[in-house]
Protein backbone atom coordinates (compact mmCIF):
# COMPACT_ATOMS: atom_id res chain seq x y z
CA UNK A 1 0.00 0.00 0.00
CA UNK A 2 2.83 2.36 -0.65
CA UNK A 3 1.47 3.30 -4.00
CA UNK A 4 -0.21 6.56 -3.15
CA UNK A 5 2.44 8.86 -4.53
CA UNK A 6 3.44 6.88 -7.57
CA UNK A 7 0.12 7.50 -9.28
CA UNK A 8 0.61 11.16 -8.88
CA UNK A 9 4.02 11.47 -10.51
CA UNK A 10 4.84 14.23 -8.12
CA UNK A 11 7.82 16.29 -9.10
CA UNK A 12 10.78 16.39 -6.79
CA UNK A 13 10.20 20.10 -6.31
CA UNK A 14 6.82 19.62 -4.70
CA UNK A 15 8.14 16.79 -2.60
CA UNK A 16 10.84 19.05 -1.27
CA UNK A 17 8.15 21.61 -0.46
CA UNK A 18 6.25 18.96 1.43
CA UNK A 19 9.31 18.04 3.41
CA UNK A 20 9.77 21.59 4.49
CA UNK A 21 6.50 21.43 6.36
CA UNK A 22 7.78 18.72 8.64
CA UNK A 23 8.96 21.08 11.41
CA UNK A 24 5.23 21.58 12.05
CA UNK A 25 5.32 18.23 13.75
CA UNK A 26 7.54 19.47 16.53
CA UNK A 27 5.25 22.29 17.58
CA UNK A 28 1.75 21.26 16.66
CA UNK A 29 -1.18 23.60 16.41
CA UNK A 30 -3.42 23.62 19.39
CA UNK A 31 -6.71 21.79 18.97
CA UNK A 32 -8.17 18.34 19.02
CA UNK A 33 -6.22 15.48 17.51
CA UNK A 34 -6.18 15.30 13.73
CA UNK A 35 -7.79 11.91 14.01
CA UNK A 36 -11.08 13.66 14.78
CA UNK A 37 -10.96 15.13 11.29
CA UNK A 38 -10.76 11.61 9.93
CA UNK A 39 -13.77 10.43 11.90
CA UNK A 40 -16.38 11.09 9.18
CA UNK A 41 -14.45 9.21 6.50
CA UNK A 42 -13.55 6.38 8.88
CA UNK A 43 -17.12 5.93 10.08
CA UNK A 44 -18.59 6.28 6.59
CA UNK A 45 -15.99 4.08 4.98
CA UNK A 46 -16.51 1.39 7.60
CA UNK A 47 -20.27 1.46 7.17
CA UNK A 48 -20.41 1.72 3.39
CA UNK A 49 -17.34 -0.17 2.21
CA UNK A 50 -15.52 -2.23 4.83
CA UNK A 51 -18.43 -3.92 6.61
CA UNK A 52 -20.43 -4.58 3.42
CA UNK A 53 -17.35 -6.02 1.76
CA UNK A 54 -16.62 -8.23 4.78
CA UNK A 55 -20.25 -9.37 4.82
CA UNK A 56 -19.99 -10.10 1.10
CA UNK A 57 -16.96 -12.31 1.68
CA UNK A 58 -18.73 -13.97 4.61
CA UNK A 59 -21.88 -14.78 2.60
CA UNK A 60 -19.72 -16.26 -0.14
CA UNK A 61 -19.20 -19.27 2.17
CA UNK A 62 -22.93 -19.96 2.34
CA UNK A 63 -25.74 -21.12 0.16
CA UNK A 64 -28.33 -18.42 0.60
CA UNK A 65 -31.39 -17.40 -1.34
CA UNK A 66 -31.19 -13.93 0.17
CA UNK A 67 -33.56 -11.95 2.33
CA UNK A 68 -34.94 -13.92 5.28
CA UNK A 69 -34.17 -17.34 3.80
CA UNK A 70 -31.94 -19.60 5.92
CA UNK A 71 -28.22 -19.61 5.22
CA UNK A 72 -26.49 -22.95 5.03
CA UNK A 73 -22.74 -23.31 5.36
CA UNK A 74 -21.12 -24.29 2.08
CA UNK A 75 -17.45 -23.69 2.81
CA UNK A 76 -15.48 -23.04 -0.33
CA UNK A 77 -18.21 -24.74 -2.34
CA UNK A 78 -19.27 -21.60 -4.16
CA UNK A 79 -15.70 -21.03 -5.28
CA UNK A 80 -15.20 -24.56 -6.57
CA UNK A 81 -18.59 -24.32 -8.29
CA UNK A 82 -17.36 -21.15 -10.01
CA UNK A 83 -14.39 -23.03 -11.42
CA UNK A 84 -16.74 -25.53 -13.01
CA UNK A 85 -19.17 -22.90 -14.27
CA UNK A 86 -18.81 -22.22 -17.99
CA UNK A 87 -20.65 -18.92 -17.61
CA UNK A 88 -18.02 -17.78 -15.12
CA UNK A 89 -15.23 -18.45 -17.61
CA UNK A 90 -17.23 -16.97 -20.45
CA UNK A 91 -17.83 -13.79 -18.48
CA UNK A 92 -14.09 -13.34 -17.91
CA UNK A 93 -13.34 -14.14 -21.53
CA UNK A 94 -15.74 -11.34 -22.44
CA UNK A 95 -13.88 -9.06 -20.02
CA UNK A 96 -10.82 -9.51 -22.23
CA UNK A 97 -12.88 -8.04 -25.06
CA UNK A 98 -13.96 -5.20 -22.79
CA UNK A 99 -10.28 -4.46 -22.13
CA UNK A 100 -9.72 -4.25 -25.86
CA UNK A 101 -12.66 -1.86 -26.23
CA UNK A 102 -11.92 0.34 -23.22
CA UNK A 103 -8.15 0.19 -22.82
CA UNK A 104 -6.35 -0.89 -25.98
CA UNK A 105 -8.31 0.72 -28.81
CA UNK A 106 -9.13 4.07 -27.15
CA UNK A 107 -5.61 4.49 -25.77
CA UNK A 108 -3.97 3.87 -29.13
CA UNK A 109 -6.47 5.98 -31.07
CA UNK A 110 -6.39 8.57 -28.31
CA UNK A 111 -2.61 8.86 -28.51
CA UNK A 112 -2.69 9.41 -32.25
CA UNK A 113 -5.65 11.81 -32.12
CA UNK A 114 -4.15 13.82 -29.28
CA UNK A 115 -0.79 14.10 -31.01
CA UNK A 116 -2.37 14.97 -34.35
CA UNK A 117 -4.61 17.58 -32.76
CA UNK A 118 -1.94 19.04 -30.57
CA UNK A 119 1.19 19.27 -32.62
CA UNK A 120 -0.10 18.97 -36.15
CA UNK A 121 -3.58 20.43 -36.60
CA UNK A 122 -3.16 22.77 -33.64
CA UNK A 123 -0.07 24.27 -35.23
CA UNK A 124 -1.28 24.18 -38.79
CA UNK A 125 -4.86 25.41 -38.35
CA UNK A 126 -4.63 27.10 -34.98
CA UNK A 127 -5.43 25.97 -31.44
CA UNK A 128 -9.09 26.85 -31.85
CA UNK A 129 -9.67 24.13 -34.46
CA UNK A 130 -7.96 21.66 -32.15
CA UNK A 131 -10.14 22.61 -29.16
CA UNK A 132 -13.37 22.29 -31.13
CA UNK A 133 -12.39 18.83 -32.35
CA UNK A 134 -11.30 17.82 -28.89
CA UNK A 135 -14.67 18.89 -27.48
CA UNK A 136 -16.47 16.78 -30.07
CA UNK A 137 -14.43 13.72 -29.13
CA UNK A 138 -15.05 14.35 -25.45
CA UNK A 139 -18.82 14.83 -25.72
CA UNK A 140 -19.79 11.14 -25.26
CA UNK A 141 -17.92 11.12 -21.95
CA UNK A 142 -20.41 13.42 -20.26
CA UNK A 143 -23.50 11.50 -21.28
CA UNK A 144 -24.91 9.31 -18.49
CA UNK A 145 -24.25 5.68 -19.37
CA UNK A 146 -27.95 4.88 -19.01
CA UNK A 147 -28.80 7.49 -21.63
CA UNK A 148 -25.97 6.43 -23.93
CA UNK A 149 -27.15 2.84 -23.61
CA UNK A 150 -30.71 3.73 -24.56
CA UNK A 151 -29.53 5.76 -27.55
CA UNK A 152 -27.24 2.98 -28.74
CA UNK A 153 -29.84 0.26 -28.28
CA UNK A 154 -31.85 2.20 -30.83
CA UNK A 155 -28.89 2.87 -33.13
CA UNK A 156 -28.11 -0.85 -33.17
CA UNK A 157 -31.72 -1.94 -33.47
CA UNK A 158 -32.29 -4.35 -36.35
CA UNK A 159 -35.55 -2.84 -37.47
CA UNK A 160 -35.29 0.84 -38.21
CA UNK A 161 -32.11 1.29 -36.16
CA UNK A 162 -29.74 3.99 -37.37
CA UNK A 163 -26.97 1.71 -38.62
CA UNK A 164 -29.23 -0.62 -40.53
CA UNK A 165 -31.03 2.36 -42.03
CA UNK A 166 -27.71 3.54 -43.43
CA UNK A 167 -27.01 0.06 -44.74
CA UNK A 168 -30.48 -0.01 -46.28
CA UNK A 169 -29.84 3.31 -47.98
CA UNK A 170 -26.71 1.98 -49.67
CA UNK A 171 -28.58 -1.10 -50.81
CA UNK A 172 -27.84 -3.64 -48.10
CA UNK A 173 -31.26 -4.91 -47.12
CA UNK A 174 -31.70 -6.88 -43.91
CA UNK A 175 -28.61 -5.59 -42.17
CA UNK A 176 -27.11 -7.69 -39.39
CA UNK A 177 -28.91 -8.27 -36.11
CA UNK A 178 -26.40 -6.25 -34.11
CA UNK A 179 -27.62 -7.07 -30.62
CA UNK A 180 -29.49 -10.28 -31.34
CA UNK A 181 -26.79 -12.32 -33.00
CA UNK A 182 -24.61 -14.14 -30.44
CA UNK A 183 -21.60 -13.72 -32.68
CA UNK A 184 -22.10 -9.98 -33.05
CA UNK A 185 -23.61 -8.70 -29.81
CA UNK A 186 -20.32 -8.48 -27.95
CA UNK A 187 -18.75 -6.47 -30.77
CA UNK A 188 -21.76 -4.16 -30.86
CA UNK A 189 -21.27 -3.42 -27.17
CA UNK A 190 -17.57 -2.84 -27.83
CA UNK A 191 -18.49 -0.33 -30.52
CA UNK A 192 -20.44 1.75 -28.04
CA UNK A 193 -17.69 1.46 -25.43
CA UNK A 194 -15.01 2.68 -27.84
CA UNK A 195 -17.23 5.59 -28.80
CA UNK A 196 -17.79 6.49 -25.19
CA UNK A 197 -14.21 6.09 -24.08
CA UNK A 198 -12.08 7.83 -26.71
CA UNK A 199 -12.58 11.34 -25.33
CA UNK A 200 -10.94 10.45 -22.03
CA UNK A 201 -7.45 9.58 -23.34
CA UNK A 202 -7.61 12.38 -25.90
CA UNK A 203 -8.21 15.06 -23.30
CA UNK A 204 -5.63 13.71 -20.86
CA UNK A 205 -2.95 13.18 -23.50
CA UNK A 206 -3.51 16.61 -25.02
CA UNK A 207 -2.94 18.31 -21.70
CA UNK A 208 0.07 16.07 -21.14
CA UNK A 209 1.56 17.12 -24.46
CA UNK A 210 1.50 20.73 -23.28
CA UNK A 211 4.15 19.73 -20.77
CA UNK A 212 6.53 18.61 -23.49
CA UNK A 213 9.22 21.16 -24.17
CA UNK A 214 8.61 22.46 -27.73
CA UNK A 215 12.37 22.81 -28.18
CA UNK A 216 12.70 19.05 -28.21
CA UNK A 217 10.44 18.92 -31.23
CA UNK A 218 12.17 21.84 -32.92
CA UNK A 219 15.58 20.31 -32.46
CA UNK A 220 14.39 16.98 -33.81
CA UNK A 221 12.74 18.70 -36.74
CA UNK A 222 15.98 20.43 -37.65
CA UNK A 223 17.68 17.07 -37.57
CA UNK A 224 15.19 15.96 -40.18
CA UNK A 225 12.91 13.83 -38.02
CA UNK A 226 9.45 13.56 -39.51
CA UNK A 227 6.22 13.75 -37.53
CA UNK A 228 5.97 10.01 -36.91
CA UNK A 229 9.55 9.81 -35.66
CA UNK A 230 8.98 12.68 -33.27
CA UNK A 231 5.70 11.17 -32.09
CA UNK A 232 7.43 7.93 -31.21
CA UNK A 233 10.72 9.25 -29.90
CA UNK A 234 9.58 12.38 -28.08
CA UNK A 235 5.84 12.61 -27.45
CA UNK A 236 5.14 9.10 -26.22
CA UNK A 237 8.09 8.79 -23.82
CA UNK A 238 7.39 12.26 -22.44
CA UNK A 239 3.77 11.60 -21.59
CA UNK A 240 4.37 8.13 -20.20
CA UNK A 241 2.90 8.95 -16.73
CA UNK A 242 -0.41 9.98 -18.28
CA UNK A 243 -0.46 6.90 -20.50
CA UNK A 244 -0.04 4.85 -17.36
CA UNK A 245 -2.91 6.62 -15.58
CA UNK A 246 -5.20 6.07 -18.54
CA UNK A 247 -4.26 2.40 -18.83
CA UNK A 248 -4.73 1.79 -15.10
CA UNK A 249 -8.07 3.55 -14.71
CA UNK A 250 -9.43 2.18 -17.97
CA UNK A 251 -8.40 -1.38 -17.12
CA UNK A 252 -10.15 -1.18 -13.78
CA UNK A 253 -13.15 0.30 -15.58
CA UNK A 254 -13.14 -2.51 -18.15
CA UNK A 255 -13.16 -5.16 -15.42
CA UNK A 256 -16.19 -3.46 -13.87
CA UNK A 257 -18.32 -2.98 -17.00
CA UNK A 258 -21.96 -3.44 -16.11
CA UNK A 259 -24.48 -0.88 -17.32
CA UNK A 260 -23.81 -1.23 -21.08
CA UNK A 261 -24.46 -4.97 -20.87
CA UNK A 262 -27.58 -4.61 -18.75
CA UNK A 263 -29.05 -1.93 -21.00
CA UNK A 264 -28.03 -3.19 -24.44
CA UNK A 265 -28.34 -6.96 -24.21
CA UNK A 266 -29.22 -8.17 -20.71
CA UNK A 267 -26.29 -10.54 -21.09
CA UNK A 268 -27.81 -12.17 -24.12
CA UNK A 269 -28.27 -13.53 -26.62
CA UNK A 270 -27.48 -16.94 -25.18
CA UNK A 271 -25.26 -15.48 -22.48
CA UNK A 272 -22.82 -14.34 -25.17
CA UNK A 273 -22.34 -10.94 -23.51
CA UNK A 274 -22.06 -11.98 -19.86
CA UNK A 275 -19.46 -10.06 -17.91
CA UNK A 276 -18.55 -10.79 -14.25
CA UNK A 277 -20.44 -7.78 -12.87
CA UNK A 278 -23.55 -8.63 -14.78
CA UNK A 279 -23.37 -12.30 -13.85
CA UNK A 280 -23.07 -11.47 -10.15
CA UNK A 281 -25.96 -9.00 -10.44
CA UNK A 282 -28.02 -11.78 -11.99
CA UNK A 283 -27.17 -14.13 -9.13
CA UNK A 284 -28.03 -11.51 -6.51
CA UNK A 285 -31.24 -10.10 -7.85
CA UNK A 286 -32.73 -12.55 -10.33
CA UNK A 287 -31.51 -16.06 -9.59
CA UNK A 288 -31.59 -15.73 -5.78
CA UNK A 289 -28.15 -17.29 -5.49
CA UNK A 290 -26.71 -14.67 -3.18
CA UNK A 291 -23.84 -16.79 -1.85
CA UNK A 292 -22.75 -17.63 -5.37
CA UNK A 293 -22.98 -14.00 -6.47
CA UNK A 294 -20.92 -12.99 -3.42
CA UNK A 295 -18.22 -15.49 -4.30
CA UNK A 296 -18.14 -14.22 -7.86
CA UNK A 297 -17.91 -10.56 -6.85
CA UNK A 298 -15.20 -11.42 -4.31
CA UNK A 299 -13.17 -13.13 -7.02
CA UNK A 300 -13.66 -10.12 -9.28
CA UNK A 301 -12.47 -7.77 -6.54
CA UNK A 302 -9.36 -9.83 -5.90
CA UNK A 303 -8.58 -9.93 -9.61
CA UNK A 304 -9.00 -6.15 -9.94
CA UNK A 305 -6.73 -5.54 -6.95
CA UNK A 306 -4.08 -7.91 -8.28
CA UNK A 307 -4.11 -6.35 -11.74
CA UNK A 308 -3.99 -2.83 -10.28
CA UNK A 309 -1.16 -3.80 -7.93
CA UNK A 310 0.82 -5.37 -10.79
CA UNK A 311 0.32 -2.28 -12.95
CA UNK A 312 1.39 0.02 -10.12
CA UNK A 313 4.42 -2.13 -9.35
CA UNK A 314 5.36 -2.28 -13.00
CA UNK A 315 5.06 1.49 -13.33
CA UNK A 316 7.25 2.14 -10.27
CA UNK A 317 9.86 -0.23 -11.61
CA UNK A 318 9.97 1.37 -15.02
CA UNK A 319 10.21 4.84 -13.46
CA UNK A 320 13.14 3.62 -11.39
CA UNK A 321 14.77 2.10 -14.44
CA UNK A 322 14.44 5.38 -16.30
CA UNK A 323 16.03 7.27 -13.44
CA UNK A 324 19.01 4.91 -13.19
Amino acid sequence: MTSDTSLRSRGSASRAAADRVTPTRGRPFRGVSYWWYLTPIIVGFTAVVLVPFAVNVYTSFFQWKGGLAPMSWYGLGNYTDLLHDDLFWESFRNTAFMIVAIVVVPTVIGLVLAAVLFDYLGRTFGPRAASVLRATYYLPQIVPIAVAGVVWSWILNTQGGAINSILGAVGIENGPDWLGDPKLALFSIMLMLVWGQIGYPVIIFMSALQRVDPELHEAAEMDGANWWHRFRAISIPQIRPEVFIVVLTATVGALKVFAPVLILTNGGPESSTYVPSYYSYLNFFQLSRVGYGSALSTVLTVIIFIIAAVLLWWQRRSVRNLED
Partner: protein
Amino acid sequence: MVTLIETRPPAEQTSPAPRQPRPAHKRGAVRWVVLGIAILTGVVMASPFLVLVLTAFRTQSDYAANGPFSVPDQLTLSAFGRYLRDVDFPLALWNSVAISLLVAVIGVLISLLASYAIGVGKIRGATLVTGVLLFATMLPQEAIIYPLFHGAQALGLRDSIWSVVIIFAVLQAAFGTYLLGSVFGTFPPSLLEAARLDGANRWQVLWQVVFPVMRPTLSVLLIFFFIWTWNEFYIPVVMLTDPANQTVPIALSTLRGQLSTDITELNAGSLLSLLPTLLFFLFFQRTLTRGITAGAVK
Protein backbone atom coordinates in the same frame (compact mmCIF):
# COMPACT_ATOMS: atom_id res chain seq x y z
CA MET B 1 -20.91 22.66 -30.46
CA VAL B 2 -18.39 25.35 -31.24
CA THR B 3 -15.83 26.41 -28.64
CA LEU B 4 -16.87 23.97 -26.01
CA ILE B 5 -13.49 23.82 -24.50
CA GLU B 6 -10.81 26.36 -24.38
CA THR B 7 -8.73 25.49 -21.46
CA ARG B 8 -5.14 25.93 -22.26
CA PRO B 9 -3.77 28.07 -19.46
CA PRO B 10 -2.27 31.23 -20.91
CA ALA B 11 1.19 30.42 -19.59
CA GLU B 12 1.35 27.26 -21.62
CA GLN B 13 0.13 28.76 -24.83
CA THR B 14 2.80 27.54 -27.16
CA SER B 15 1.92 30.00 -29.81
CA PRO B 16 3.14 28.97 -33.21
CA ALA B 17 3.10 32.52 -34.50
CA PRO B 18 6.70 33.64 -34.02
CA ARG B 19 8.16 30.55 -35.64
CA GLN B 20 10.06 30.57 -38.87
CA PRO B 21 8.22 29.80 -42.12
CA ARG B 22 6.81 26.31 -42.03
CA PRO B 23 8.73 23.45 -43.57
CA ALA B 24 7.61 22.67 -47.08
CA HIS B 25 5.90 19.40 -46.19
CA LYS B 26 3.44 21.25 -44.00
CA ARG B 27 2.11 23.32 -46.82
CA GLY B 28 1.00 20.52 -49.07
CA ALA B 29 -2.25 18.70 -49.37
CA VAL B 30 -1.41 16.32 -46.52
CA ARG B 31 -2.63 18.71 -43.89
CA TRP B 32 -6.04 18.93 -45.51
CA VAL B 33 -6.27 15.16 -45.61
CA VAL B 34 -5.36 14.97 -41.93
CA LEU B 35 -7.87 17.70 -41.10
CA GLY B 36 -10.50 15.85 -43.12
CA ILE B 37 -9.89 12.62 -41.20
CA ALA B 38 -10.00 14.45 -37.87
CA ILE B 39 -13.26 16.15 -38.78
CA LEU B 40 -14.72 12.89 -40.05
CA THR B 41 -13.85 11.29 -36.72
CA GLY B 42 -15.61 14.17 -34.99
CA VAL B 43 -18.69 13.72 -37.15
CA VAL B 44 -18.78 10.02 -36.36
CA MET B 45 -18.46 10.79 -32.64
CA ALA B 46 -21.20 13.40 -32.77
CA SER B 47 -23.51 11.53 -35.11
CA PRO B 48 -25.50 9.74 -32.39
CA PHE B 49 -26.37 13.15 -30.97
CA LEU B 50 -27.29 14.56 -34.35
CA VAL B 51 -29.60 11.67 -35.21
CA LEU B 52 -31.03 11.87 -31.71
CA VAL B 53 -32.00 15.51 -32.20
CA LEU B 54 -33.38 14.89 -35.69
CA THR B 55 -35.57 12.05 -34.48
CA ALA B 56 -36.77 13.68 -31.28
CA PHE B 57 -38.46 16.49 -33.22
CA ARG B 58 -40.09 14.27 -35.85
CA THR B 59 -43.61 13.00 -35.98
CA GLN B 60 -44.09 9.30 -35.41
CA SER B 61 -45.48 8.71 -38.88
CA ASP B 62 -42.62 10.61 -40.49
CA TYR B 63 -40.16 8.34 -38.66
CA ALA B 64 -42.04 5.23 -39.66
CA ALA B 65 -42.10 6.27 -43.29
CA ASN B 66 -38.72 7.91 -43.78
CA GLY B 67 -36.41 6.58 -41.08
CA PRO B 68 -33.95 8.57 -39.00
CA PHE B 69 -31.89 10.35 -41.66
CA SER B 70 -34.28 12.20 -43.92
CA VAL B 71 -35.07 15.86 -43.45
CA PRO B 72 -38.08 15.94 -41.11
CA ASP B 73 -41.44 16.81 -42.71
CA GLN B 74 -42.18 19.12 -39.87
CA LEU B 75 -40.70 19.86 -36.49
CA THR B 76 -42.89 18.95 -33.58
CA LEU B 77 -42.64 18.80 -29.81
CA SER B 78 -45.25 16.07 -29.55
CA ALA B 79 -42.72 13.35 -28.69
CA PHE B 80 -41.55 15.44 -25.75
CA GLY B 81 -45.15 15.85 -24.68
CA ARG B 82 -45.64 12.09 -24.68
CA TYR B 83 -42.46 11.51 -22.70
CA LEU B 84 -43.46 14.08 -20.08
CA ARG B 85 -46.83 12.36 -19.83
CA ASP B 86 -45.27 8.92 -19.27
CA VAL B 87 -42.49 9.98 -16.93
CA ASP B 88 -42.69 12.51 -14.13
CA PHE B 89 -39.63 14.25 -15.48
CA PRO B 90 -39.69 17.25 -13.11
CA LEU B 91 -39.73 14.83 -10.19
CA ALA B 92 -36.83 12.80 -11.62
CA LEU B 93 -34.96 16.02 -12.23
CA TRP B 94 -35.56 17.10 -8.65
CA ASN B 95 -34.36 13.72 -7.36
CA SER B 96 -31.22 13.89 -9.48
CA VAL B 97 -30.45 17.45 -8.42
CA ALA B 98 -31.11 16.73 -4.75
CA ILE B 99 -29.04 13.55 -4.70
CA SER B 100 -26.14 14.94 -6.70
CA LEU B 101 -26.00 18.21 -4.81
CA LEU B 102 -26.15 16.57 -1.38
CA VAL B 103 -23.50 14.04 -2.37
CA ALA B 104 -21.24 16.73 -3.81
CA VAL B 105 -21.43 18.98 -0.74
CA ILE B 106 -21.18 16.22 1.87
CA GLY B 107 -18.49 14.41 -0.13
CA VAL B 108 -16.32 17.50 -0.47
CA LEU B 109 -16.75 18.30 3.22
CA ILE B 110 -15.66 14.82 4.30
CA SER B 111 -12.75 14.92 1.84
CA LEU B 112 -11.66 18.32 3.12
CA LEU B 113 -11.63 17.25 6.75
CA ALA B 114 -9.87 13.96 6.09
CA SER B 115 -7.26 15.29 3.68
CA TYR B 116 -6.50 18.14 6.10
CA ALA B 117 -5.54 15.55 8.67
CA ILE B 118 -3.53 13.60 6.11
CA GLY B 119 -1.86 16.39 4.14
CA VAL B 120 -1.41 19.14 6.73
CA GLY B 121 -1.67 17.17 9.96
CA LYS B 122 0.56 14.44 8.55
CA ILE B 123 -0.90 11.90 10.91
CA ARG B 124 0.95 8.66 11.38
CA GLY B 125 -0.39 6.02 9.04
CA ALA B 126 -1.31 8.55 6.37
CA THR B 127 0.23 6.37 3.67
CA LEU B 128 -1.79 3.41 4.82
CA VAL B 129 -5.01 5.45 4.87
CA THR B 130 -4.52 6.81 1.36
CA GLY B 131 -3.47 3.38 0.13
CA VAL B 132 -6.65 1.82 1.47
CA LEU B 133 -8.72 4.61 -0.07
CA LEU B 134 -6.97 4.18 -3.41
CA PHE B 135 -7.90 0.54 -3.54
CA ALA B 136 -11.42 1.37 -2.39
CA THR B 137 -11.86 3.51 -5.49
CA MET B 138 -11.20 0.40 -7.58
CA LEU B 139 -13.60 -1.82 -5.64
CA PRO B 140 -16.38 -3.08 -7.91
CA GLN B 141 -19.74 -1.97 -6.61
CA GLU B 142 -21.15 -5.47 -6.88
CA ALA B 143 -18.80 -6.55 -4.08
CA ILE B 144 -20.74 -4.36 -1.64
CA ILE B 145 -24.14 -4.02 -3.27
CA TYR B 146 -26.00 -6.92 -1.71
CA PRO B 147 -25.05 -6.13 1.91
CA LEU B 148 -25.84 -2.47 1.23
CA PHE B 149 -29.17 -3.40 -0.29
CA HIS B 150 -29.94 -5.70 2.61
CA GLY B 151 -28.74 -3.19 5.19
CA ALA B 152 -30.75 -0.36 3.67
CA GLN B 153 -33.80 -2.58 3.76
CA ALA B 154 -33.23 -3.36 7.44
CA LEU B 155 -32.86 0.34 8.22
CA GLY B 156 -35.91 1.26 6.16
CA LEU B 157 -33.74 3.32 3.82
CA ARG B 158 -34.24 1.26 0.71
CA ASP B 159 -36.11 3.16 -1.95
CA SER B 160 -35.14 6.36 -0.23
CA ILE B 161 -32.82 8.84 -1.85
CA TRP B 162 -30.93 9.01 1.46
CA SER B 163 -29.48 5.53 0.98
CA VAL B 164 -27.98 6.63 -2.33
CA VAL B 165 -26.83 9.95 -0.87
CA ILE B 166 -24.98 8.30 2.02
CA ILE B 167 -23.37 5.63 -0.15
CA PHE B 168 -22.12 8.00 -2.81
CA ALA B 169 -21.03 10.71 -0.38
CA VAL B 170 -18.70 8.14 1.19
CA LEU B 171 -17.52 6.60 -2.08
CA GLN B 172 -16.81 9.99 -3.63
CA ALA B 173 -15.14 11.19 -0.42
CA ALA B 174 -12.83 8.16 -0.51
CA PHE B 175 -11.59 9.28 -3.90
CA GLY B 176 -11.58 12.95 -2.88
CA THR B 177 -9.50 12.26 0.21
CA TYR B 178 -7.05 10.22 -1.77
CA LEU B 179 -6.72 13.03 -4.30
CA LEU B 180 -6.70 16.02 -1.93
CA GLY B 181 -4.37 14.40 0.59
CA SER B 182 -1.46 14.78 -1.77
CA VAL B 183 -2.50 18.27 -2.88
CA PHE B 184 -2.61 19.34 0.77
CA GLY B 185 0.83 17.85 1.29
CA THR B 186 2.22 20.65 -0.86
CA PHE B 187 0.37 23.40 0.99
CA PRO B 188 2.63 26.50 1.33
CA PRO B 189 4.38 26.05 4.70
CA SER B 190 4.84 29.80 5.13
CA LEU B 191 1.08 30.28 5.41
CA LEU B 192 0.86 27.62 8.10
CA GLU B 193 3.82 29.17 9.90
CA ALA B 194 2.15 32.59 9.89
CA ALA B 195 -1.07 31.11 11.23
CA ARG B 196 0.85 29.40 14.00
CA LEU B 197 2.50 32.63 15.03
CA ASP B 198 -0.96 34.18 15.22
CA GLY B 199 -1.90 31.44 17.66
CA ALA B 200 -4.59 29.87 15.49
CA ASN B 201 -5.78 26.43 16.45
CA ARG B 202 -6.27 23.55 14.00
CA TRP B 203 -9.92 24.26 13.34
CA GLN B 204 -9.24 27.94 12.64
CA VAL B 205 -6.30 27.10 10.40
CA LEU B 206 -8.52 24.78 8.37
CA TRP B 207 -11.26 27.31 7.76
CA GLN B 208 -9.32 30.58 7.72
CA VAL B 209 -6.09 29.54 6.01
CA VAL B 210 -6.43 26.24 4.20
CA PHE B 211 -10.01 26.47 2.95
CA PRO B 212 -9.69 29.84 1.15
CA VAL B 213 -6.50 28.76 -0.61
CA MET B 214 -7.94 25.41 -1.60
CA ARG B 215 -11.28 26.74 -2.79
CA PRO B 216 -10.61 26.42 -6.53
CA THR B 217 -9.52 22.79 -6.14
CA LEU B 218 -12.51 22.07 -3.94
CA SER B 219 -14.91 23.55 -6.47
CA VAL B 220 -13.50 21.34 -9.21
CA LEU B 221 -14.02 18.37 -6.93
CA LEU B 222 -17.56 19.52 -6.17
CA ILE B 223 -18.47 19.72 -9.84
CA PHE B 224 -17.00 16.31 -10.51
CA PHE B 225 -18.81 14.68 -7.60
CA PHE B 226 -22.02 16.23 -8.89
CA ILE B 227 -21.62 14.91 -12.43
CA TRP B 228 -20.38 11.48 -11.40
CA THR B 229 -23.28 11.04 -9.03
CA TRP B 230 -25.72 12.31 -11.64
CA ASN B 231 -24.48 9.70 -14.11
CA GLU B 232 -24.37 6.78 -11.67
CA PHE B 233 -26.32 3.74 -12.69
CA TYR B 234 -25.77 0.53 -10.74
CA ILE B 235 -26.51 1.50 -7.15
CA PRO B 236 -29.47 3.78 -7.98
CA VAL B 237 -31.00 1.14 -10.22
CA VAL B 238 -30.81 -1.41 -7.40
CA MET B 239 -31.84 0.92 -4.57
CA LEU B 240 -34.47 3.13 -6.15
CA THR B 241 -37.24 1.07 -7.68
CA ASP B 242 -40.18 3.35 -6.95
CA PRO B 243 -40.64 5.79 -9.85
CA ALA B 244 -41.14 8.52 -7.25
CA ASN B 245 -37.47 8.22 -6.25
CA GLN B 246 -35.82 7.58 -9.58
CA THR B 247 -33.13 9.76 -11.06
CA VAL B 248 -33.20 11.15 -14.60
CA PRO B 249 -31.08 8.40 -16.22
CA ILE B 250 -32.82 5.58 -14.31
CA ALA B 251 -36.28 6.88 -15.21
CA LEU B 252 -35.31 6.81 -18.87
CA SER B 253 -33.80 3.34 -18.81
CA THR B 254 -36.69 1.76 -16.89
CA LEU B 255 -39.18 3.21 -19.36
CA ARG B 256 -37.18 2.01 -22.34
CA GLY B 257 -38.85 -1.39 -22.55
CA GLN B 258 -42.28 0.19 -22.90
CA LEU B 259 -41.06 2.72 -25.41
CA SER B 260 -39.62 0.38 -27.98
CA THR B 261 -42.58 1.04 -30.23
CA ASP B 262 -42.38 4.82 -30.06
CA ILE B 263 -38.88 5.68 -31.19
CA THR B 264 -39.52 9.42 -31.35
CA GLU B 265 -40.62 9.47 -27.72
CA LEU B 266 -37.56 7.43 -26.77
CA ASN B 267 -35.33 9.95 -28.49
CA ALA B 268 -37.13 12.89 -26.97
CA GLY B 269 -36.68 11.30 -23.54
CA SER B 270 -32.99 10.64 -24.19
CA LEU B 271 -32.47 14.21 -25.32
CA LEU B 272 -34.24 15.59 -22.25
CA SER B 273 -32.17 13.29 -20.04
CA LEU B 274 -28.81 14.33 -21.37
CA LEU B 275 -29.66 18.02 -21.60
CA PRO B 276 -28.91 18.75 -17.92
CA THR B 277 -25.40 17.25 -18.10
CA LEU B 278 -24.80 18.96 -21.41
CA LEU B 279 -25.79 22.36 -20.01
CA PHE B 280 -23.73 21.69 -16.93
CA PHE B 281 -20.78 20.81 -19.13
CA LEU B 282 -21.14 23.94 -21.25
CA PHE B 283 -21.41 26.05 -18.14
CA PHE B 284 -18.42 24.60 -16.32
CA GLN B 285 -16.32 23.37 -19.21
CA ARG B 286 -13.27 25.40 -18.29
CA THR B 287 -13.24 24.15 -14.73
CA LEU B 288 -14.03 20.65 -15.87
CA THR B 289 -11.33 20.15 -18.42
CA ARG B 290 -8.82 21.67 -16.05
CA GLY B 291 -10.08 19.32 -13.37
CA ILE B 292 -10.00 16.15 -15.44
CA THR B 293 -6.35 16.57 -16.15
CA ALA B 294 -5.51 17.74 -12.65
CA GLY B 295 -7.44 14.84 -11.20
CA ALA B 296 -5.71 12.38 -13.40
CA VAL B 297 -2.12 13.22 -12.88
CA LYS B 298 -1.43 15.62 -10.09
